[in-house]
Structures are given as C-alpha cells and as structure tokens.
C-alpha cells in the first residue's frame, strides 16, 4: 500500500488560513443578516438593539418588526435592530446576555424583569424620558395609575407597555341553561357555581399545572378583591391577614363543594382552554384574551363579567403591567429614549390590527375603533383596569424587587396547587408561602 504524500495534505498553516477565511466570511454573512433587520438611516451611529417578546399571534412580531425598522432616527442617533426573544428560557437569555454586555439597549420581557435588573444596576431609569413625554402629551395618555407601578426608589425602572389582566369570564349559554344571572358578589358566585354543578359544569375554572400560573394569580386576586394581598407598605411579606385567610377559605369552600375541577392543580393553560371549549367550564378566571385563545363557536359564548364585590365591600384583581425597559448598556441613552418615543407614538396598530397582544397602556389606543370592536377587551379596560393592583398590593402600588419571589416561583406554585387540591387549610398554606417568600427575599439581599 502506498504511503500518503504529506506534501499533498492540507498543512496546519493552510488549515488555519482556510478556517480563518471561512470564519470571516461567516461573520460577514451574519452581520449582513443583522443589518437586514436594521432601520434605514442613522449615519454611522452604532445600531441600538431592541428585543421584544412574542406577545401575540404570528402577525404581532411581523408588524412590530416593521414598526421598529421603519424608525428613522435624527442625525447622530442610532437606528434600531429588532430581535424576537422566545418565552422559552427567556430568563436565561436575558440574564446571560446582560451579564456579558451583549444584551439589548431596549427590551420588553417578564413583568418583573426590570426590577430584577434594576437591583443589579443594569437599568437606565426612564425619568428623563417621562419628563419629555410630559411636554408632548404622551405621559397623560397613559391609563390612570399605570406609570406609578414602575416607580422604584431611584426612579422609574421601566415604561408600561401592554397590560396582562385577570378577569372573570362566563359562558352566557351555560349560565342561561342553568337559569342564573352573572354573579356580582362572592355569594352570587357560589350560587352560580351551585347551579352549574347541577349540569355537571365547573363554575370556578382555573389551571395551576406545568407552566400555568393563572391558578396562583387568581388566588392572589381573591385576596386583593377582599382588600388583602401579599406585601405590606414596607415591602415585607404580610400574608397571614384576616382578609387573606377569608379569601383562601372561600376558595377552599369552592373546592370542597366540587365547584373546582379536581384536575385544576395539574391543568396546563391548554387543558383549561380545552375545558372551556368542551363546555366543562361555565365560569372562571383567566386572561383578557381567553375568548380569542379558545376560539371556535364557544368564543362567542364567552363574556367578561363585572368585577365581584367581596364581603369587605371592596373590589380588586391582580394585573401585570408588562413594560419596556432601557438598559445602561446602550450606544447612547439619547438614542434609547428617542427610539422609545418613536415606538410609543407609532405602536397603536399592534392593538388595532388583531395581533393578539394584551391590553394597551394608552387611552388613545383604547378609544380607537379597531380596539373597541372587542367588547370584552373594552370591558376589561373600563371595569378592571381602574380596580386592578399589582403583586405589591396592598402595601404599595409600585412593583419592587421582592415581588420576583412570588411571580411564578416554586413556592407560589406549591401554594396554588395545595389550595386547589383542597388538602390544606388557609392558615397553613399562607403561612408556608409567607415563610418561603421571606426566606427568598432574604436570599436576594
């Protein structure tokens, strides 16, 4: 057998040369791809990275990208690039990018993300931006109380973007068959549940399984509805209150009486929607987009009910003012602010062109004809937004770092699953949640 000729083989130096050329070519290609999603002008200014989440259906990010890349910055300011960040593992995506200074200059993200990064010194406060919006009228266009939810000690950590609200839904057809009117109080709620149960339908439809956080959101909503909540004015967990115990006892009563599907502790959001579709859920709590998510003929039967009045005479629900934040790692703060001003002045189509995004933060958008076509969304904005509160309730309006210890955490999941499973007491469940939250806040430093 002939031995191979070493001279004809690729030398190490040759290999490195080829590899280097390939690397440069690939980098060029990738840069080219990146440029494809960049706004047109801006001179030689370094592009500003805008990362947004898939907040709606497939149309959302297409339209959002167009709005972003249509941005024509003033001379000397940066154009914007657009990138969609998927919800899967988004915490890791943001954390690793921001830790390595390769993250965005402006982004949306999880509802409490801004407060987390603010505590790490990575957020650029929006105070100057909001001051400028006071002059051009944009500030006054925000729905009442919204901007306040973003205020931390050092300034505004973010700007409200889209609202994720929890509302009462009922199926008009099933309530009609049961011969009952939509509830207005907690007692009414029990009566409607009892009437639906006679037809083998659950009146308290909810889900607290893998990735479904609605179950826990609604438990906190019952507390807020009764004048309670999770944190006091000092931002400390204060859960073992009479209002909270009464609220959780009410839920346990619903579980005991068979008004809650026993599979709710393990239902995913899809499972819950399939139960609405199958006419197994006649009433319950969900996001304001439930009817759109369920779809089909059932969607037309689903209606947002008015907020319930609790035994304490109060009303209230939990809501999530999702937001857009600016980071300290930016080509220039002025560029970030200029881009956001443009974006907020031009983002209305995201709510008027059926993209499936949550509810709008601006009054002017809620007044558009496109938005008002959806009666359920209008009801959510008009009746729920004014009474809704954040995780920080009842102590304060504004969110803070400590709320990350209850937002989708294992302790909160366990709390929801144990209550909806019915094998606990209100005091035991709240006490366990209180201890876990206090411990987690201590670990945050």
């Amino acid at each position, binding site marked *: 057998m002939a031995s191979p000729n070493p001279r004809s083989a690729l030398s190490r130096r040759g290999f490195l040369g080829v590899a280097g050329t390939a690397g440069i070519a690939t980098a060029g290609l990738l840069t080219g791809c990146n440029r494809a999603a960049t706004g047109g002008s801006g001179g030689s200014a370094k592009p500003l990275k805008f990362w947004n989440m898939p907040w709606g259906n497939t149309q959302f990010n297409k339209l959002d990208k167009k709005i972003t890349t249509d941005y024509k910055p003033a001379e000397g300011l940066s154009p914007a690039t657009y990138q969609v960040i998927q919800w899967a593992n988004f915490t890791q995506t943001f*954390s690793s990018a921001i830790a390595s200074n390769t993250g965005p200059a402006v982004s949306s993200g999880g509802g409490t993300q801004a407060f*987390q990064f603010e505590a790490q010194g990575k957020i650029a406060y929006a105070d100057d931006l909001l001051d400028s919006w006071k002059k051009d009228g944009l500030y006054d266009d925000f729905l009442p109380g919204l901007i306040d939810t973003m205020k931390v000690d050092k300034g505004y950590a973010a700007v409200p973007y889209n609202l994720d609200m929890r509302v009462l839904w009922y199926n008009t057809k099933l309530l009609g068959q049961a011969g009952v009117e939509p509830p207005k109080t907690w007692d009414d709620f029990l009566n409607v549940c009892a009437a639906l149960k006679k037809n083998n339908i659950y009146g308290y439809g909810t889900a607290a*399984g*893998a990735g479904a956080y609605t179950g826990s959101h609604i438990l906190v909503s019952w507390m807020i509805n009764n004048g309670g909540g999770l944190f006091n004015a000092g931002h400390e967990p204060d859960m073992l209150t009479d209002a909270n115990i009464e609220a959780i006892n009410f839920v346990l009563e619903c579980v005991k009486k068979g008004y809650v599907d026993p599979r709710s502790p393990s239902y995913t959001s899809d499972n819950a929607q*399939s139960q609405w579709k199958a006419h197994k859920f006649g009433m319950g709590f969900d996001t304001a987009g439930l009817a759109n998510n369920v779809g089909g003929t059932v969607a037309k039967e689903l209606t947002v009910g008015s907020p319930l009045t609790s035994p304490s005479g109060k009303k209230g629900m939990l809501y999530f003012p999702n937001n857009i934040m600016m980071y300290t790692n930016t080509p220039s703060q002025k560029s970030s602010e200029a881009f956001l001003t443009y974006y907020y002045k031009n983002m209305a189509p995201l709510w008027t062109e059926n993209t499936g995004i949550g509810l709008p933060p601006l009054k002017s958008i809620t007044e558009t004809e496109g938005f008002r076509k959806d009666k359920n969304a209008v009801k959510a904005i008009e009746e729920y937004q004014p009474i809704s509160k954040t995780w920080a309730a009842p102590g304060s309006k504004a969110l803070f770092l400590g709320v990350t210890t209850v937002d989708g955490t294992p302790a909160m999941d366990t709390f929801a*699953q144990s209550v909806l499973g019915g094998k606990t007491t209100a005091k035991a469940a709240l006490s366990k949640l209180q201890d876990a939250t206090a411990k987690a806040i201590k670990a*945050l430093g």
Partner: protein
Amino acid sequence: MSAVSEGLEKARRGVGVAGVGRPGASPRRRPTRGALTLILFAVPSLILLLLINLYPLVYAALQSVRNGTLIKTGTFVGLENYANILTQSAFWDSALFTLIFTVTGVFGSWAAGLALAMVLRTKIPAGGLFKVLLLLPWVVPVVVSATSWNWLVATPQSPLPVLAESLGFGNVLFLSSPILAKITVCVFKVWISFPFMMMMMSSALTSVDVNVYEAAKVDGASGWQTFRSITMPLISRSTYISWILMTIFCVNDFPTIFLLTGGGPVNSTTSLVVMAYRTVFQDFQTGPGVSIAFLMTGVLVIVSVVLYRQIAKVNIE
C-alpha cells in the same frame, strides 16, 4: 456439581460443542516508542477537552460556594449553601423521588427492552417494521411525547381517564393526585427509555455465540436455566453499561418531568434536577441551585464507579 450445572458452567465460559474456549489474557506489553508518539499527538486534544470541561466545572464549583445571582457572582459563603440544602426537607423529598424515578426508569426500561429484544430475536413476520415502530418513543422529541401523554391523561375527556372510568375505577386523577402523578411520570420514563435498552440488549444478544445455546441444549437445560445461567451472564457487561447510562439519563432527566407535570402537584414529582433548575431560574438563587447539581454529580459518580467495578469483575470472571 451435577452434569447439567457443569455443562452450563462450561457453556457460560464459552466451551461449546465446537470446543471453542475463551482466549487467554494477552501478556502485558510495555508502551513502545510508537505508542508514546500517539499519546503526544493526543495531548493537544486532551488539553482542549480539559479546558472545555474543566472551565465550566470550576466556575460552577465557585458559584456553589457563593451567594450570587445569574448576573453577579456574589460573596463567598463557604459550604453554607450545601448545609442549607442538606437540611431542607424539600431536598430529601426530591432525592427520594429521584431515586424512585431512577430505579423505575432503569429497571423498568431494561426489563421491557430485554423482553422485546428477545422476542425480536426470533423470526416474526415484519420484524423490521416492529423494530422501527418500537423505536419511536426514543426517536420522537420529548416535547411531542410529553404533549401526547398530557393529551392521554390530563382531562376527564382524555382516553385513559375515560377507559379507567369505564372499567369501574372512577375518576382517576393521573396528574393531579400526588401518588398517581409519580406513577404516571415513572411509566412515561419507562415508555420513553425502553427502545434504548432494547437496542443495547439486541446488540448484546447478537454477540452471544449460538454454539453456547446448543451446548446447553445438549446438556438438557430448560429455557429458564438457559436464560438465567447463559444469556444473563454473557450479556452482563452490556447490561451493566446500559444501567450506568440509563442511571445518568434518569438522574439528569429534566424535560420528561418538567414538561409533563412541572414538578407538581405540590412538588410530588420534583426530582433533584428539576429542583436545581427551579432554584436557579425561578428563585434566582444560583449558589443553592448549583450545589444541588454538584450533590447529584457526586452521587452519580459513586453509582457509576460501583457499576464499573462490577463490569471489571465480570471481565475477570
């Protein structure tokens, strides 16, 4: 020793009717100059591998003794994270579930895989097609499998609850009852993993010399005696290797559990790897989360060493 037992012992050692015995141990050789050259060639790759594996390992070890977050490394806290974790009842509950999940996953999938491998060794019509179909649970992405299983068991209208009710078992809560959720997750793991075991066992069975079985037959061994005294010992090396691999797969299995139950209800299906993930990425406590991962790695190393010693023992025998 009876004639049958003696014959089986000879057969197991490979002294068949054709008189073929095991080759003797090769004499120990000193490394030659050529071998040294080969080792030197391998050194750069070894250094690269060490860097790729060592850097994250050392970095993780450092994180486990600090109270950092995903962004900041935090301050040095010594072994406090380990001490806190080891005194948490939630950790021991998760460790127990990990043990149950692993033992069921390893031995359940091995038993099913071996049984199917033996069935597929016999000539059956469309055997190839069966093999392909049986491989599907392993081949299909776990996201798809988990969604299918959710569809099978989650709601009252799902096929299995409907079947259970029609058989008189009442309203069976496959994922909502803590005990049934544990069982469902373990069965799901066995279902996902048996094709891998089937392939391992199939390849081990093909390496067994048919003459050995003929020798056993001549000596009058029954089917069970042949299986217990010939098949099992001769495939023991592959069996131990498959156990080691499946133990690692089960202990480190995150998606199977997380996608089906998310670790619930009420933490009943939270394994150590799920707990580590949730501690780091949902509670944002990097130190304790990485400490859990390190404790898991320690246990895995011990189990692997024990099983490797077993393999060495088989080789000596």
